[in-house]
């Protein structure tokens, strides 16, 4: 079973317009999970958003692993019904192997994330 690591991240829930205005970073991974939600992973820290009602959650429940492109391709082809986007880097999410996954795909590797309640099953299904 591949070792799964914890990926602490910041979830920002705000208005679509304000999230659209966030400057992305070249070092942090920024995933737009919904029109009103964004995940910020890595450094620098997430920028401050000018929304007093925004929900900023430091979420410690995501776990996952980096797969090489080769391993990722094999896993996706065996387990994913939908076609992944082809640009890089790119964020994608949906059901893979019966699990709700978030994918961050770079030219040479892919990050697979699930929330902790799914972690054990992800471990089994990555084999």
């Amino acid at each position, binding site marked *: 079973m591949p070792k799964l690591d914890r990926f602490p991240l910041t*979830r920002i829930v705000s208005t679509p317009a304000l999230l659209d205005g966030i400057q992305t970073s070249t070092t942090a991974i920024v995933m737009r999970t919904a029109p009103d939600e964004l995940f910020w992973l890595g450094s620098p820290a997430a920028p401050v958003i000018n929304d007093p*009602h925004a929900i900023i959650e430091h979420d410690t429940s995501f776990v996952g692993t980096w797969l090489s492109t080769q391993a990722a391709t094999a896993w996706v*082809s065996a387990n994913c019904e939908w076609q992944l986007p082809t640009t890089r880097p790119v964020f994608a999410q949906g059901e893979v192997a*019966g699990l709700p996954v978030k994918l961050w795909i770079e030219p040479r590797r892919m990050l697979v994330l699930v929330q*902790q309640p*799914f972690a054990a099953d992800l471990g089994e299904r990555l084999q």
Partner: protein
Amino acid sequence: MTESSQPLKLIIDGQPVPFVKGDSVLVAMLRNQHHPTGGGCLCLGGDCPHCLATIDGVAYVRTCQVPARPGCVVACTHHAHAVPALPQTHHVEPTTNARHQHADVVVIGQGKSGLAAAELARTAGQTVVTLDAAQGQDVIGIYPGAQVVARTTQGMLIVHVRQEIIVATGAAELHPVALGNSLAGLMTARAAQQLQAAGLSLGRIVVINDANRLVRFEGESNVTAVVVRDDQGLEQHVGCDTAVIDLGTTPRNMLHRMAAGLPGVRVSVVGDAATNSDVPNCPAHGLVCHCSQVGVADLQSVWDRGFHELELVKRASLAGTGTCQGGVCLPYVRSFLANKGGTLQPAFTARPLARPITMGEVAAGGHHHVTLRTPLDGVHRAAHAHMERAGGWWRPWNYGDWQAEYWAVREAVSIMDVSTLGKMLISGPDALTLLDRLYPTKVSTIKTGMSRYVLLLDEKGYVLDDGLISKISDTRYTLTFTSGGATTAELWVRDWAESWGLNVRILNQTMSLGAINVTGPLAKELLARAGLEKPPEFLSHVEAHVAGIPCRIFRLSFTGELSYELHHAAVNAPVLWRTLLDLGKSLNIRPHGLEALLKLRLEKGHIIVGQDTDFDSTPRRIHHEWAVKLDKPDFVGKHAVLRTNKVSLDKILCGLSMEGPPPIEGANLTVDGNYAGYVTSATWSPILGKTVMLAWLKLSNDLAPDRVMIDGRPAQRTETPFYDKEGARAKA
């Protein structure tokens, strides 16, 4: 030893027999004078049912499609149309896997027209997947999506098609329908060619190329003569060892019929598969459907008794319901019906599977529905907890001794993993408006720092869920829902927020927060040891550190004892759990599971939505009118509640108690021998020394009986809570 010195052998009905490299199992069998089924016109094209056998434990395998392998075990379980036994155990098989592929165009069949179609599509810049039975790629079905699913030598392949499905499956040869057509020694022209090419001797050959002249085949088990009609109409016996059937072809268009009309994709058919399906002459004698052993006389019989529609004829005569799904017989059945009724009826519905494959193969790539695990799952398992599935989660049922767990709550202190609770954060200028419209309580009267137990109703006024609303600020609230209710609740809240166009931010925190309930008379003492100096008052909440971990602490009680619910980042759950257990050692702490909790809450008369409520539970029926404020301007379910309140009350959820052990949950209530409802929850109460229950009780003449019988024993209606009626312990 070299390959050439050791003859290749497979096992047929227990006997090793040699074969030649390149043989299919069928060719190997024929080479050794074995006919898999004992007769019928062989096609060697995967269309007919005459070469079926059991290979390596799998029955109904077309031996003509399986390459012979050394040691492969063949059993002639279909000989003389026998029905194979169900396997007792499953054969160990190579792991099958499934893969997905995406393409603009799928071409099924790689004969001349299929090759051309694929080439054309490629030239047009389209991505093309080709599937060819001759290369071990059997298309088993075409599905909405559109998906083309095939069994390949590398496992199952699911191709997701964007633009076009091209069916180029060619044509199958027509089989003969005449007396004696189930004898051995019959084969189609293509089959004969293949067998000759494989070096088999076919003996004396008669070629049948005119169905009008064919009268019958003669022989005991193998054909010895063909009887044909000559130009003068006289019957001629022609002795032979092999009758080669060359009666023309019928398009293999099953996949085209299956795919036709699929939304979102073009479906076309090319080559021989596209030829007009002219039907052969109406048969007079002989077997029409070999899979189900249906003769012309059987068709006549059902026709004579009023079965005229093709679909009815199929179901009554069973023609077309076997392994080949009408591949051989359909042209003849249509011909028969056209001859009787004067019109040619369209072919019957083509359903998957186009080719049988095993359930093991179909199951490839499948997964069980996930049962969720809390951040403390590993901790519970390490403590040898008995884990159970409940509400979609793995939860500790007990840690080996529910009674000790129960008493720890009632007399000392205990902790429980309640991370499964649905948890949601709502923020925004319209947060209050949203919640006030969603919930039947007056959310506006909840003060900052306070919480309230609430019901959630659907539009029909029935209880959907229950939970807690806690106010953090004028524009920020947290909500909780039942375990297992979180996903539905999130959809519910988001749907309403969107349809009302409200300015709110919503975050489902169910999985990102862990939650631990600290409960028991010594709960406060334990938290003091963990550094919590100012715990919240009853029904309030604070943010504070417990054992150094930031928590939001809610003060409510499901067990009836002094309780604090600690919500914290999921990652901190194990440390917090272990620290609390360490600090509580001298307080005789022990964690409790669901089994103890179900008893504790029942002593308090607390309902569990879904167990004690049903689809039609109105607040009035469950005695929760106090949770519904009908003088509010509006809330989801209000109109339904007003309407149902006008109807007489027919049943209530009420408390019951009785001496002796508890009945099963679900036991019937009777009054004067008549059914009067049923028990939803029942337990022996250790602290009260009697059985306490919740039950649905029918009213008669608007009155609820005070006494009922359960399994022949009397039970008494009892006000809830059964234990600590004033709630002094929880509010301590």
